């Protein structure tokens, strides 16, 4: 089973091949510390004892690496001395493909990045495009609220997925199934709204692809009524469970300054006690009009990250309830001929509408020259979209700042000195989605 897929310099090198200074440098790079800080650790390079350490590969095909993350761990016994994540096994060239697709088609590309919360990806791409077009202030109210509704529901489904995989990774097999069971309810709603369970391409520049279906309110209410009780079950099964606490508390600790230096965002940053949530601190859509609490941890350990996500589900439910009350009537997309295709009904009647429709979906619309960076809060942290346009209907460069890609840099930090079992808990608590790591 030993994996022989040689990735050369990307791999962790055995101590015997390294001189002390090289090791120091490598430690610095792997730990993402500056070299000066790494030198302070001092003792590490001195203790090579080559025959007592063992380098093992975790992944890319390993049950607990959430897809195709590959970790090289240097172990002493079962203690992790060094760790290096090797990524790219799911590199899809989406940024390159994004340059070939028009702004209209771009959504279907970015939605496949973070497959656990596709709607947030579409949202950030659409918002960046709108900003480039200069129509970001004109998006109709209803569209904004709908986007919030979908985004929050997506946050719930994504965190439920986390609950499932986190439980699974720590050996609570039933939790896995329970998490999926609840997520499935949310996906049903998505399927009803967007037609798809995942990869919706529903949020588009200028608004959304369609209006909410009749009866959506009842469906959402059904989810909201069902979930609290299930979350209590989670509390019984996991939060209050001594083994669970033992396994997570004090594991994978990271300090606020480390998290900030490493650029970590989302639940990881919040678990260290830093209050930073773009929904609150850099409000987009209508987040400044709803009430919700920021969930902040204090120890920066895996348990905090678990608890934060669990409670964020509750907060999202609170937001969704407010959205249900506040959802205005109106248009679900901007009525701007430039970016909005004509309604389906008009295509049958008017030749011009047909041509317009055809052009928008084949050629796309031209976007003025310029470049923007737009960031929103995805379930994993700050997802940003940097688009440079040269005035053509396709982005000149489309880059997505994926939260998992940055967060994954915390892994070596968190794992250091832990056990192999902790490594699993740590990966799980970072909750990376490899689709967005590798893009």
């Amino acid at each position: 089973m030993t994996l022989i897929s040689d990735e050369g310099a990307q791999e962790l090198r055995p101590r015997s091949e390294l001189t002390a200074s090289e090791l120091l440098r490598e430690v610095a790079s792997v730990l993402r510390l500056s070299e000066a800080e790494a030198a302070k650790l001092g003792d590490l390079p001195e203790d090579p004892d080559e025959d007592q350490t063992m380098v093992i590969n975790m992944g890319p095909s390993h049950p607990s690496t959430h897809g195709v993350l590959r970790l090289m761990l240097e172990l002493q016994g079962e203690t992790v001395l060094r760790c290096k994540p090797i990524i790219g096994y799911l590199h899809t060239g989406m940024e390159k493909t994004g340059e070939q697709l028009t702004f209209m088609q771009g959504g279907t590309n970015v939605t496949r990045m973070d497959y656990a919360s596709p709607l947030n990806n579409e949202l950030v791409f659409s918002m960046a495009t709108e900003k480039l077009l200069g129509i970001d202030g004109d998006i109709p109210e209803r569209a904004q609220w709908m986007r919030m509704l979908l985004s929050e529901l997506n946050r719930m489904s994504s965190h439920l997925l986390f609950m499932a995989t986190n439980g699974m990774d720590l050996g609570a097999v039933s939790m896995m199934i329970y998490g999926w069971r609840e997520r499935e309810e949310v996906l049903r709603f998505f399927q009803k709204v967007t037609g798809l369970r995942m990869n919706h391409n529903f949020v588009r520049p200028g608004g959304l692809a369609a209006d909410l279906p009749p009866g959506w309110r009842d469906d959402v209410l059904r989810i909201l009524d069902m979930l609290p009780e299930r979350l209590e079950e989670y509390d019984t099964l996991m939060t209050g469970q001594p083994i669970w606490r033992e396994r997570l508390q004090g594991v994978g600790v990271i300090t606020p300054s480390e998290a900030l230096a490493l650029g970590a965002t989302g639940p990881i940053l919040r678990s260290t006690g830093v209050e930073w949530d773009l929904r609150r601190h850099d409000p987009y859509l209508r987040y400044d009009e709803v009430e919700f609490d920021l969930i902040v941890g204090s120890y920066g350990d895996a348990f905090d990250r678990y608890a934060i996500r669990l409670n964020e589900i509750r907060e999202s439910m609170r937001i969704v309830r407010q959205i249900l009350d506040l959802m205005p009537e109106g248009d679900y997309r901007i009525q701007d001929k430039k970016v909005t295709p004509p309604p389906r009904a008009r295509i049958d009647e008017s030749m011009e509408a047909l041509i317009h429709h055809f052009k928008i979906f084949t050629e796309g619309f031209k976007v003025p020259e310029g470049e923007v960076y737009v960031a929103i809060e995805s379930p994993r942290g700050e997802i940003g979209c940097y688009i440079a346009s040269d005035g053509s209907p396709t982005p000149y460069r489309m880059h997505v700042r994926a939260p998992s890609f940055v967060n994954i840099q915390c892994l070596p930090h968190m794992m250091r000195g832990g056990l192999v079992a902790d490594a699993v808990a740590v990966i799980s608590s970072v909750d990376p989605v490899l689709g967005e790591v590798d893009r």
Partner: protein
Amino acid sequence: MELLVFVLASAMVLAGAIGVIACNNPVHAALGLVLTLFGIAVHFVSMEAHFLAAVQVIVYAGAIVVLFLFVIMLLGVDRAEDLSVEPFQIQRPLAVIVGVAISGLVIAAVVRGRSTLGEQLESGVPGDDNIRELARSLFSDNVFAFELTSVLLIVAVVGTVVLTRRQRGGASK
């Protein structure tokens, strides 16, 4: 029937013993040792030392050899030792001669003195009573020795812990 048991068990014992000294690989040697130990346990049973048979398996096979294997795996010394190279040419034949000589001497002594043993094994104390009697012997006549062995064990454990303790943080040492 008894003969059959004796022959089979003896075969196990000897095959295992040969395995111990002839196998290149320490793990195989350890497996040979387990075979020997089992054979001896069978002999114990047929001599009605049931308790000792069980203890033989539990202590020897279950603990001591497992410890051996543990150390072998821990140290990674499981690569085969090359038996064909021998630094001292004379050592091996000499060893065989000495071994055979010792065995021969003992066998001779046993055969000469067998009349004192009596030819027929008597039926010993059966079943639970055997264990009771062993216990009585251990905890009355030999209780001092018994306590001493427990002290010995503790000393051994402590000594080993001290011996194998890894010195962390070389600066302090």
